């Protein structure tokens, strides 16, 4: 159990509200959004709490408008956030592409639901492709953070604001209905900024300085090509510097689970049970989905006898795992689109996998 910092009390909090707390603590005072299930706790909380601290809450006429309010406030040099769910995030893709092209920071929260189309409101991880490969036009990337606890909903939101400012790029928090709506104890740790507060590119009126222009249009061939390479170098730096993952019992694990978010959270229970049975199971949980911990996954797959990729979809992160390693024969997949896998199901999968590859139960304590 995490020790409690002196003077800071543990609180029982909903995941979606923890995102709000993280945003406010990180200095975000602007939020725009449009209602959609299952993330409404976020606009509801912020509409009540932002005005009281001098912040601005504005409900937009659509997600198309939302992302452009975000663009304008970001261009003004302010920290700004929106949240939505699958269908709404789809409508924001145009604006996200413009923001990536214009190099504007913001935090975008996707508390995803099942799809495609209107889909359903059941928890799902079906937006992995859209988030990590980026659904807008033109070929851009953005960091994607996948919290698996209420504590991380809080801490990764704070990190998201720093990454956004560091790279002048949108950053996405990819959660789902379970992680957004469950309550658990969390510790409101203080925010320590890792980026300068000054934004020497922001539009504030050109008093005492030359005018500034924020745009994504580059009509000259050499200009747009140079801009694309510049963005590419930024994305490569993200790959070098921002990979985050959590290893769980990876040392000596014959069977390695690769899962993120809610699927990883549930897997942790199954791993406990399996290890109690003497099965050497561990997990590599990507915390950043982009950049994906490819090197670490490859190392884990190389050392393991078998790898079980678990997702609440029909196999999306699975493709990134397959790209990361040559050992495709070791990889198995458990998919639960639009539903939550139970620890029992996962344990059953681990047991049959152990039987299949001949992993013997022993003392793994």
């Amino acid at each position: 159990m995490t020790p409690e910092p002196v003077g800071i009390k543990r609180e029982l909090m909903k995941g979606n509200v923890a995102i709000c707390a993280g945003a406010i603590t990180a200095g975000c005072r602007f939020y725009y959004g449009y209602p959609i299930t299952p993330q409404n706790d976020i606009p509801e909380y912020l509409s009540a709490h932002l005005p009281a601290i001098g912040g601005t809450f504005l409900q937009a006429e659509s997600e198309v408008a939302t992302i452009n309010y975000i663009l304008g406030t970001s261009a003004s040099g302010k920290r700004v956030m929106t949240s939505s769910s699958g269908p709404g995030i789809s409508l924001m893709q145009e604006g996200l592409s413009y923001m990536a092209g214009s190099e504007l920071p913001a935090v975008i929260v996707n508390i995803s639901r099942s799809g495609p189309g209107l889909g359903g409101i059941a928890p799902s991880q079906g937006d992995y492709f859209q988030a990590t490969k980026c659904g807008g036009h033109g070929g851009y990337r953005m960091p994607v953070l996948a919290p698996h606890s209420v504590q991380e909903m809080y801490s990764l939101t704070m990190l998201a604001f720093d990454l956004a400012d560091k790279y002048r790029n949108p950053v996405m928090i990819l959660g789902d209905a379970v992680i957004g709506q469950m309550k658990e104890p969390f510790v409101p740790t203080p925010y320590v900024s890792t980026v300068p507060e000054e934004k020497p590119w922001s539009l504030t009126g050109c008093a005492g300085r030359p005018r500034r222009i924020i745009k994504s249009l580059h009509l000259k061939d050499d200009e747009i090509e140079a801009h694309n390479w510049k963005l590419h170098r930024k994305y490569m730096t993200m790959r070098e510097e921002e990979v985050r993952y959590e290893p769980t019992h990876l040392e000596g694990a014959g069977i390695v689970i690769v899962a993120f978010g809610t699927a990883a959270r549930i897997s942790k229970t199954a791993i406990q049970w399996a290890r109690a049975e003497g099965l050497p199971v561990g997990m590599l949980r990507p915390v950043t989905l982009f950049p994906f911990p490819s090197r670490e996954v490859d190392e884990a797959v190389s050392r393991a006898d078998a790898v079980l990729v678990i997702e609440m979809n029909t196999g999306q992160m699975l493709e990134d795992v397959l790209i990361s390693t040559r050992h495709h024969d070791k990889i198995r997949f458990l998919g639960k689109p639009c539903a939550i896998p139970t620890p029992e199901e996962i344990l059953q999968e681990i047991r049959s996998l152990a039987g299949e590859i001949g992993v013997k139960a022993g003392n793994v304590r």
Partner: protein
Amino acid sequence: MKNKAKEKFTKQVFSRPRSLVDVSTHYCPGCHHGIAHRILAETIDHFDLREKTIGVAPVGCAVLMYDYFDVDFVEAPHGRAPAVATGVKRAQPDRFVFTYQGDGDLAAIGTSEIIHAANRGENLTVLFINNTTYGMTGGQMAPTTMLGQKTSTSPYGRDYRNDGYPIRIAEMLATLEGTAFSARVATSTPAQIRKAKEAVKKAFDMQIREMGFSIVEILSTCPTNWGMKPLDAQKRVLGEISGYYPLGVYKERKQADFA
């Protein structure tokens, strides 16, 4: 002696507005964007706003306007300028924020954003350039295209049975409570230009006094895509176009009634 005489007997009465950059524009001969740009720049200068202005550029012929104005500028996706401007103004209520949009941008793809910005009484100023066509993309039919007008996508002339009717934005936005000022002007004669400038000044003044949303629709020309000589294009505005789109002030709020 010579210079002193010059000082005594000459006075500069006309120059480039401070808010314009000394470059030539990409606009076609006979296009009225140049006139609208100058009116806008003169009004920024008139209120001494250059150093506290943030402009929002559209997608269309005026996308490059940030190369011509010596003020801070952000480029919006097609039709989204009122939403981008909302984000700027909410973050910086003490700055002057305007959008400059064409009829494809504002009256087609951006109808939702313009209506809701107006309806919220968003304290913004909008210059709306209506030349009844999509200029930048090669003269396709716009929602503002006149009935019977031939364009590259209405080669037989706009037919209401297929394409509906030309949309009157200044009148429509005047019906919204949040709109403080809505007017339609033209720039085809010196007298019209003077009136247009007065309207733009009033629109600016609304934002300065925090009265709410202000818009000036400017009936413009597109000789290139209309297939007309510049003078004939001006005549078309004076006749056919202002016949369907009457000039005038459609709403002028006298006092802030939602304070």
